[in-house]
């Protein structure tokens, strides 16, 4: 090192160092801004592509249904079976696209609540009734355990339907034929004046303790137990948690491998109840 270099460094004034740090901070801020822009771009791309994926998929499903219904001519039972697989697969894909779209929208412009006051019993009836044919087809038992004293809630109805549908969908998927799935609702034992506690439980495969937090994370899927073959986006529970927390509620689960799962979430009771 040439003599005098040390002297040069040492000779820098404190002000010069501050100036350097400041310019580094400024650079870092520019970089953060650029990264944010890129992240937004990616989210917008995800949102656009999800939207554009729906159109051809909708056409595929509609045309498959036209064939299945025999509108263009008779179909054999084997052909009908095959067409039904196209429709089921198409609808699954559509649900996944809807989840990605919902997640992308929520990341770029966080959801706000469109609140109304409604009866939990009626909502549970509505959502479970929609699933009755699936429950019968899968050979499951679906029970509603609704305490008659559950007060009405003040919440975003669409979002609560989404949470409940998602939890029920998981319960149906991971419970073998002959098993039970139940939905219960009552005042929350922890905070009975302010919250209603809903539960979606099943006698299905269960989830290992060390995955209880993981499954709520973005894109996470639990498949290491080998018994769970999940084919979703890994966004369902992330969105569910986000929606519940937007209401000031909480979502969690109690489960063990092989012992079923119980998912719980709370919703705010309508004020003055």
């Amino acid at each position: 090192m040439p003599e005098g270099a040390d002297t040069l460094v040492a000779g820098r004034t404190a002000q010069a160092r501050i100036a350097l740090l400041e310019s580094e901070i400024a650079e870092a801020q520019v970089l953060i801004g650029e990264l944010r822009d890129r992240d937004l771009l990616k989210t917008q791309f995800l949102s656009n592509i999800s939207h554009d994926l729906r159109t051809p998929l909708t056409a595929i499903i509609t045309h498959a249904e036209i064939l299945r219904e025999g509108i263009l001519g008779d179909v054999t039972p084997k052909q009908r079976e095959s067409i039904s697989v196209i429709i089921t697969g198409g609808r699954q894909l559509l649900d996944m696209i809807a989840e990605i779209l919902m997640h992308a929208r929520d990341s770029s412009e966080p959801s706000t609540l469109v609140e109304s006051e409604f009866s939990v019993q009626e909502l549970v009836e509505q959502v479970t009734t929609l699933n009755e044919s699936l429950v019968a087809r899968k050979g499951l038992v679906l029970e509603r355990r609704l305490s008659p004293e559950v007060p009405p809630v003040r919440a975003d109805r669409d979002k609560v339907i989404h949470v409940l549908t998602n939890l029920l969908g998981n319960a149906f998927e991971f419970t073998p034929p002959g098993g039970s799935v139940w939905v219960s609702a009552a005042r929350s034992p922890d905070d009975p004046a302010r919250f209603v506690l809903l539960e979606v439980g099943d006698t299905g495969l269960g989830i290992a303790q060390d995955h209880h937090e993981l499954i709520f994370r973005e894109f996470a899927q639990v498949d290491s137990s080998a018994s769970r073959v999940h084919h979703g986006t890994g966004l369902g529970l992330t969105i569910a948690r986000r929606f519940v927390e937007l209401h000031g509620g909480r979502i969690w689960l109690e489960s063990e491998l092989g012992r079923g799962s119980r998912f719980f979430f709370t919703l705010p009771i309508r004020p003055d109840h």
Partner: protein
Amino acid sequence: MVRRILLVEDSELISSGLRILLESRGYEVTIAASAAAAIEWSGETAPDLVLLDLTLPDADGLEVIEGLSQRGIRPRAVVALTGHADAATRERCAVAGCDAVLVKPVPVQELLRIVSDKVA
């Protein structure tokens, strides 16, 4: 009497299926691929039913209702088609004068049932 349906849908992939479906039940179907094309409805009398996609290339689908109305054309019923029917969308449709909101892809039997109810 043959019932006439104006199908406002910009995607040919979608309109082709709906046309097959509706024509199979004897409806006369006219397809408009934009709001402008829909508003230029050339029939002498109003269509019995308008099936309206909410996302059109040139306008919000609901503007078609207003556009037709300004020309004195009042269909017997308007049914909105959308990929995503949240509470806000349903409210907007109701205010604009839609009689029903259906989520695409509408199961074909449900679509036929609702169309038949609305034009009856």
